[in-house]
């Protein structure tokens, strides 16, 4: 079974490795430059948080201008590229077999259809999740000097692109694509449906995690929201709600759990299509 999964997906695995290596290469390269520039800022006493010199603002502005491109290039692109890749892997998983009628062959070997589906889907999802984790680690690593230099205030703005979130993104997009492929039986429409569904669910899940978890509120004695916190804008001038830095990892885990649950639900729907629909 595992040999068959490997044989059917090894080309995709190779492409994903190339993609990951490219991403990591770019991120390391950008990080190296950003680190050098941050070292310059530090030497000038202009590091965010302990600005001691008066002429720092132009230096920080200059840093921001130079590294603003990382927001579209990595913060937005990494989860999106992972989702597109995962959808391209997931959509043909059932749909291509049905399209070329090889499902009649693969489902009549000595392995039951259920075992084939579960084995394949879980293995490929695990692989894509691992790829997502590596990408998330990359953005996390890249973000360090960028935050120091003031492009982003903390890890929070990249919440949906860093740490565990990209792993959840790729698994969810994959699961949606598998299910869409199983119902539509055509890979390309399934990719489109999966990506639209992914964007909607990813945004909704993110918003839910942001709004439904308990927040702290600023006290009158505070000078404002801590710089390493995630604010959730409300109209109130007093008692501004925010997620403190300590909530970063619990919220990452919650977000991942929500995405994985949605993915599992999509895979169950996909199984339903295989089990009940006529050949």
């Amino acid at each position, binding site marked *: 079974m595992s040999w068959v999964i490997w044989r059917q997906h090894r080309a995709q695995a190779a492409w994903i490795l190339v993609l990951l290596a490219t991403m990591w290469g770019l991120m390391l390269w950008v990080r190296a430059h950003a680190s050098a520039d941050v070292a310059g800022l530090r030497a000038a006493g202009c590091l965010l948080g302990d600005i001691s010199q008066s002429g720092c603002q132009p230096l920080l502005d200059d840093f921001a201008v130079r590294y603003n491109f990382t927001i579209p290039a990595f913060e937005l692109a990494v989860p999106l590229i992972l989702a597109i890749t995962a959808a391209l892997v997931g959509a043909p998983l059932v749909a291509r077999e049905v399209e070329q009628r090889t499902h*009649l*062959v693969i489902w009549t070997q000595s392995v039951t259809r259920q075992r084939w589906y579960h084995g394949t889907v879980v293995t490929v999802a695990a692989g894509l999740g691992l790829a997502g984790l590596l990408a998330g680690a990359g953005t996390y690593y890249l973000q360090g000097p960028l935050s120091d230099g003031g492009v982003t205030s903390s890890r929070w703005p990249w919440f949906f692109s860093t740490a565990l979130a990209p792993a959840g993104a790729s698994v969810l997009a994959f699961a949606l694509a598998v299910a869409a492929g199983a119902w539509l039986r055509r890979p390309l429409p399934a990719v489109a449906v999966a990506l639209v569904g992914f964007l909607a669910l990813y945004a909704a899940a993110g918003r839910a995690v942001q709004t439904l978890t308990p927040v702290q509120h600023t006290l009158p004695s505070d000078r404002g929201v801590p710089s390493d916190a995630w604010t959730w804008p409300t109209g109130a001038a007093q008692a501004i709600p925010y997620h403190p830095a300590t909530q970063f990892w619990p919220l990452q885990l919650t977000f991942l759990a929500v995405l994985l649950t949605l993915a599992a639900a999509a895979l169950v729907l996909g199984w339903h299509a295989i089990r009940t629909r006529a050949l």
Partner: protein
Amino acid sequence: MTAPVLDCAGLGHRYGRRGPWGLRDCTLTVPAGGVVAVVGPNGAGKTTLLHLAAGLLPATEGTMRVAGAAPTQRLEQIGFAPQDAPLWPHLRVRDVLGIGAHLNPRWDAGLADDRIASLGISPRARVSALSGGQRAQVALTLVLAKRPELLLLDEPLANLDPIARRAFLASMFEACIDSGAAVLFSSHVIAELERICDHLVVLAGGRVRLAGEIDQLRRTHRVITGPAGWPTTQPPAALDASSTDGGWQLISVRQAAGRTTALVRVGAHLLAGPGLDAAEPTLDELVLGYLDQRHPDQEPSRQDPRSQLEAPA
């Protein structure tokens, strides 16, 4: 008598909750080692029957058993070759066989390799580069090396040119008989089947029109040829309502060249009347006769031949 490899009773499958029935009320038994031809026009339900037997479709009504259990519990013992031999076009032949080897505990690697080698197919060739006949052979090898007890071949001869068809047929049946498995195959080519199969199932409109051992079927049927208009104008003695022992049943009638030919199911004895020729039907005549038969539901009185003949189908 050994237990049947396949038996189904009252089997039916409906496509969708309100969709058309692909097969209804199908009752069949395939003995161990039997070679069964399932024939019928397109849309008769041949593929539905084979997919039910392969565990690809669930039975909507009735039961389908392979070696005494549901087909999905007997996947190891069932070898199914779908119509048109679908295979993964980008894989090499050896990878296709590798899939078989890794998904089937009873896989016979020696058989697979020898068969591919003896057919002159390179294991390194990609499926997309194979001819139609070669692809059909690879698909058949994938099924044979699984060492099944029941071989299900869906239109194995379709899409092969006449020369490839003859070569494939010979090799297919040699391999099937060597394997000792029971074979259930569908086809709409009748002429080539006579030498190789011992059971016949005629399907039309999703229903079994005729099922049985071919020798037995030929013994109990007669093709009777007489002058045009027979038998309405000149019923032979055996056609009288008085004939007993199961009597006889008129299956279908054809008019050709001023003669009327009827396929008749008969009891133990049949005395053809004067001016009539009676002969055992060929497989062709048997199949075509039953395909010409009016649908049983449309026949108010099957036992009275004359009412049928006055309003021929």
